[in-house]
């Protein structure tokens, strides 16, 4: 879905400062389009969605940084981005909590979906895992997003 289509669905003109983030969001949109159309042959079932998750994370992180870290966009524009779903509100809500600053995706902290009621392997700090063991979580291909 192009950026223009997404804007049309909100039915509101974008607030002040939209020009600042528009080119970057365009780039993210193009990257997402590329990831979506990529053929799945030769990939494992779990691997298919990993690039989508990665781009989604990067885009949310960009909006989050622009508002909370750099304070370059207004509150209105930030909320407009959330309602237009340029950024994932649920994911950003997690990032505000201690220990979840770099969370890869919301799926990885969903304990109800695991066999023993645990979070994903990528939530285990690197120091607690074997040094030589390389991990890629099945949900989003994250190597480690904690500690």
């Amino acid at each position, binding site marked *: 879905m192009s950026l223009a289509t997404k804007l049309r669905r909100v039915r509101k003109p974008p607030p002040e400062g939209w020009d600042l983030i528009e080119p970057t969001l365009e780039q993210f949109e193009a990257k997402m389009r590329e990831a979506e159309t990529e053929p799945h042959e*030769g990939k494992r079932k779990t691997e298919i969605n990993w690039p989508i998750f990665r781009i989604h994370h990067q885009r949310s992180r960009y909006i989050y940084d622009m508002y909370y870290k750099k304070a370059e966009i207004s509150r209105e524009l930030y909320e407009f981005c959330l309602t237009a779903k340029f950024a994932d509100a649920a994911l950003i809500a997690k990032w505000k909590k201690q220990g979840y600053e770099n969370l890869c995706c919301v799926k990885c902290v969903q304990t109800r979906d695991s*066999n*023993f009621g645990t979070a994903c392997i990528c939530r285990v700090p690197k120091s607690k895992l074997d040094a030589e063991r*390389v*991990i*890629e979580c099945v949900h989003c291909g994250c190597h480690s997003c904690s500690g």
Partner: protein
Amino acid sequence: MSMSKSSYSQYNRKNWEDSDFPILCETCLGNNPYMRMMKDKHGRECKICERPFTTFRWQPGKGARYKNTELCQTCAKVKNVCQTCMFDLEYGLPVQVRDHELQIADNIPKQGANRDFFLQNVERTLGQGDGTQPIAQIANNMDQAAHDRLRRMARSQPYYKRNAPHICSFFVKGECKRGEECPYRHEKPTDPDDPLSRQNIRDRYYGSNDPVAEKILNRAAAAPTLSPPADTTITTLYIGNLGPSGAQQVTEKDLNDFFYQYGDIRCLRVLTEKGCAFIEFTTREAAERAAERSFNKTFIKGRRLTIRWGEPQAKRAADNSNYVTPVPSVPILPIPDGLAPSTSSQQRFTGSMPRPPAPPTFAAPTRLVVPNVRPVKAGEPSSSSSSIYYPSQDPTRLGAKGDVIE
């Protein structure tokens, strides 16, 4: 008839199995004492009887692949095997090896109504007992020698290499893209012509055409054995590979500590510079027991000891005829039965036949089991008193039980 649980069990005793804990061997459980298992009620069909059963899935230790149960518990109990690896629960050996050694000809029905009827009867039997007694033909086999043979073939430690991940099929084709992250083993595959690469569950379970069993049986047949010599007076064992003389050598105490478990030791001589020892037992049974139980599997100080039967002393005595010097001070007495000097031609008496008195000659006996004379010490006047000397009176003699009196 539908295969739904309720209607099916009403008309037939063939029930869907539900269990709380799997029947597993030590190897399959792995080395981690803090293990988590996943239980899947009626999760899969049994690979043998094709009835749904409750499966379990777990990771047997670090770096191992996930394992799950393949057989239902009834099938496992019929053969007394692990639900996952189908090796015998007691010895960890394939069914074929166990049945071959214990002479079990277990022709249980393998398919169709016969099999279902058989399992139905088995379940009825199981229902009557408390679940701890063995069933089928294994229950009434009491051949101790066969069990000993099996114990020798079995591993003494769990074999965790069996839990290793499978070989990555993509790596074999040279196209594994996961690299370091790949949970499968990146190793050279086994030779497809090797019979060991053609194993299957049903053959393993029924104990027929099992390549693993064949390998184990061949190895057991080829293993060297130590047969006791025909001369029943020999009670001496040769023990070699004690190591070069020094601190690392196996000492007399080590040998005594190990071999006294098989019986009373009469004499233990260690030849330090040759790195070997001769150990003489008081009875033939003890010597045979020691030879059988220690041959090829005795490790002391990290060395595998060589065990052989001692040569007949008669041969050696013939080489040097002054091996035993006659002592003139000994009165001629009828020698006690157990201590009689015996030649290889003379057999030991078993009955209560009266023995002819020993000939009054001082010719060297060909073999002397126990010196029944007090060793003459220097400076001590040789007394010609006719008191009988019993070896057990000498406290300095090897193998004496009491304290050594200086």
